[in-house]
């Protein structure tokens, strides 16, 4: 059976130079990220170039995705949270397009590498900490002190709140990365079953079964690709809400 990990391999395209002992290489991952940014930029520029009252197909698509993210931000971070709308919208579109690129056969899934998703999660948590400290100063640490808790329980609750805050970037990045990695490996394994069954003589009549399952799994993976981008955007706005209103 073909190795299902092979699809996540980074392939160097050309070398850019070196810093110390580390080589700077332009990889297929970087190429896909640039392509995703190009798609998003071209889509939004062309869609909004001629803003008409009755939107065309492209304009309707751009307006719908904007409204969708705006509603998400508004419902979890309030009207004040709309100042982070550009950040959340960029993150949502970037992850969505990269996830969908991964569903193209022979495509490369950038979000299946934890260093990429962790960098995205670090941007979100960094924004929360920096903005929270800038806006509220030391009141930001009120986030870790729940109100209405008896004094003898308070040290334990503060410890739990700190642990839950520190584990946020980890769970945010691992959720996206694990979903993409496990989904694509499962697809490859079921596709491998088809190839193995076809060489099995009489039992090759069973080969359409894993093939049908592969088709169903592909549909599920497209759903997961969109859902994970939505979940990332929702959790980002929930965490940003903490920076805006740190009191419990």
């Amino acid at each position: 059976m073909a190795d299902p990990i092979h699809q996540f391999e980074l392939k160097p395209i050309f070398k850019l130079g070196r810093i110390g002992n580390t080589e700077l290489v332009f990889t297929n991952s970087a190429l896909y990220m640039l392509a995703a940014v190009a798609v998003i930029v071209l889509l939004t520029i062309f869609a909004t170039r001629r803003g008409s009252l009755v939107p065309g197909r492209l304009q309707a698509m751009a307006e719908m995705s904007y409204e969708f993210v705006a509603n998400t931000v508004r419902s979890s971070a309030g009207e004040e949270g709309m100042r982070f709308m550009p950040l959340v919208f960029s993150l949502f579109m970037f992850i969505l397009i990269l996830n969908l690129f991964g569903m193209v056969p022979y495509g490369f899934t950038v979000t299946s590498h934890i260093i990429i998703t962790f960098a995205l999660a670090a941007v979100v948590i960094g924004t929360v900490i920096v903005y929270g400290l800038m806006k509220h100063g030391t009141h930001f640490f009120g986030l870790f002190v729940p109100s209405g808790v008896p004094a003898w329980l308070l040290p334990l609750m503060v410890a739990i709140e700190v642990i839950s805050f520190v584990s946020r970037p980890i769970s945010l990045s691992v959720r996206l990365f694990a979903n993409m990695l496990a989904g694509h490996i499962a697809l490859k394994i079921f596709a491998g079953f088809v190839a193995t069954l076809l060489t099995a003589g009489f039992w090759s009549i069973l080969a359409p079964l894993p093939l049908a399952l592969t088709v169903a799994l592909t549909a599920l993976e497209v759903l997961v690709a969109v859902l994970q981008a939505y979940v990332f955007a929702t959790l980002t706005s929930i965490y940003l809400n903490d920076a805006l209103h740190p009191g419990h």
Partner: protein
Amino acid sequence: MDPVAAKYIGAGLACLGMAGAGIGLGNLFGQFLSGSLRNPSAAEGQRGTLLLGFALTEALGIFSLLIALLLLFAV
């Protein structure tokens, strides 16, 4: 124990964690269905919450599947 055998046993044990995700997803959709049959007019507005809960629950099952796959192919 033979390390290769231990690897495969570990991968099988790691998959047991997906039982929890199965229970959670069944609970999630069952509760949504019972709620939406009682009040069908309110169900449409909660579809986003349902999908969010689906993705968050599903992720925990995926974590244990990830451990199994890493044991099988990466270790």
